[in-house]
């Protein structure tokens, strides 16, 4: 579904991504783990078209999307929930969801998806007319995910969905991710919470200062000595 081929990404003179390749097969959950500043968000931003790689290629659905602007990539069914949620805090929950469906014009389909999303996130339904800046962190994360689902993504990029959430809520969010994946959406999941990420992923990559240092099935990585030491707390 998605193949990242040897990309190099810079912020000015800073070489943030140093020749990364990733493969995200159709229908799977692939985790990308690594510590602060490893380059996880930069990788997702590059896939989404918010940044351009200096070299390398990004293939999605059999098509080269390197350098395609972000707003066009969304239209191809590749949607990202960015780190820190980035909900439109000055707008209501409903307006945020409508913006998620910005590129669609099938009114009936949008209405149906809206219902489905509220079913998945009942808390949002209760708050649909609330200004989203006043939602709790967990609710904002749900809104950001719900908003992304409104675009009917085939591939969903999630950047640290568990960030700053209480353990119970993290569980809830991860269950929803599994549910979304079971519904046919491929997921590329960036996480610092390696434990949780590996527990739901099929496959995983470990990123360290701009390079992939390890990769394999989630089970392999979860039992690997190095990963346990560095990311799973022993």
């Amino acid at each position, binding site marked *: 579904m998605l193949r990242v081929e040897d990309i190099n990404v810079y912020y000015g003179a800073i070489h943030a991504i140093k020749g990364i390749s990733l493969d995200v097969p159709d229908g799977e959950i692939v985790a990308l783990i690594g510590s602060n500043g490893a380059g996880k968000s930069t990788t997702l931003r590059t896939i*989404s*078209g*918010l940044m351009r790689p200096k070299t390398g290629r990004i293939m999605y659905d059999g098509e080269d999307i390197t350098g395609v*602007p*972000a*707003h*066009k990539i*969304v*239209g191809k069914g590749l*949607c*990202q929930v*960015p780190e820190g949620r*980035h*909900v*439109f*805090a*000055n*707008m209501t929950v409903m*307006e945020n969801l*409508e*913006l*998620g469906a*910005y*590129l669609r014009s099938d009114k009936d389909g949008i209405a149906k998806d809206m219902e489905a999303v509220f079913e998945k996130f009942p808390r949002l339904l209760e708050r649909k007319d609330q200004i989203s800046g006043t939602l709790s962190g967990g609710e904002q994360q749900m809104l950001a995910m719900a*908003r992304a689902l409104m*675009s009917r993504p085939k591939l969903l990029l999630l950047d640290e969905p568990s960030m700053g959430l209480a353990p119970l809520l993290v569980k809830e969010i991860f269950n929803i991710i599994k549910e979304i994946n079971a519904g046919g959406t491929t997921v590329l999941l960036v996480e610092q919470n390696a434990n949780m990420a590996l527990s739901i992923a099929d496959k995983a990559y470990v990123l360290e200062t701009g390079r992939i240092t390890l990769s394999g099935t989630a089970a392999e990585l979860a039992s690997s000595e190095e990963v346990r030491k560095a990311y799973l707390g022993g």
Partner: protein
Amino acid sequence: MDTLLQQFFQQLINGISLGSIYALIALGYTMIYGIIKLINFAHGDIYMIGAYFGFFATTQLGLGFIPAIILSMAGAAIVGIIIERVAYRPMRNAPRIAILITAIGVSFFLEYSMILLVSPQPRTFPAVFTPTVYHFGPLVANSQQLVILISALILMVALSYIVNSTKAGKAMRAVSFDADAARLMGINIDRVISMTFALGSALAAAGGVLVGVYYNSIDPLMGMMPGLKAFVAAVLGGIGIIPGAMMGGIILGVVEAMVSGFLSSTFRDAAAFGILILILLYKPAGLLGKNVREKV
């Protein structure tokens, strides 16, 4: 006492009509600032160009007021889009000061191109309305003032509708709040920015035509002072905040009218910039703004 009160209300009427013109210009300032964080110093000149479009539409094409103002708004919208494309878009990622200097350059470019094209001589804007004076008890309002008020009101209601209730308006608000998040929704921010320039320029052009109708005289440098005043109005209401620009414009117009009426019209401009200094000192985010510090 009675005459004092009467004068107060009279100046209120004058102030609100002048203020609605400031408001129309201030709206463009504030919308453009909201979306690309640029103080578009060329905005007052768009208002001037709008006045000339209105002038030629009435004198050369023989159009009436409503078709002339519509034509002028459309023309200015196109000019606004072109300016953004040619001058500001290439500077999108440049330091802010560079863009600000570009805006000043665009302002001079427009002013002196117009001097070249239409001559520096002031032109007499044709009287598109038979000047009628209406009496409301002891107060008088002329037909121009009523036209200004009604036109400004219609335009502001239309703008509020576009911004709050249409898909394009929602996209505008999204881009102005968080451009990257908006791109991740599939919003083409270049298009939204063009639309913002178009809307802002159209409103300024309407202001220009209305001023032509009101004062009967237009010239290529007419945009300088109202441009600055509208900037004050936008800052007064809280730059980037649409209702703030409307409010700031009206307040500024009323203050100026009161100062001219009760003190002397020589203090008028001083009052406007005095307001700017006060607001920057005591409420830098503007009347409707939240007080967060931001570096310009």
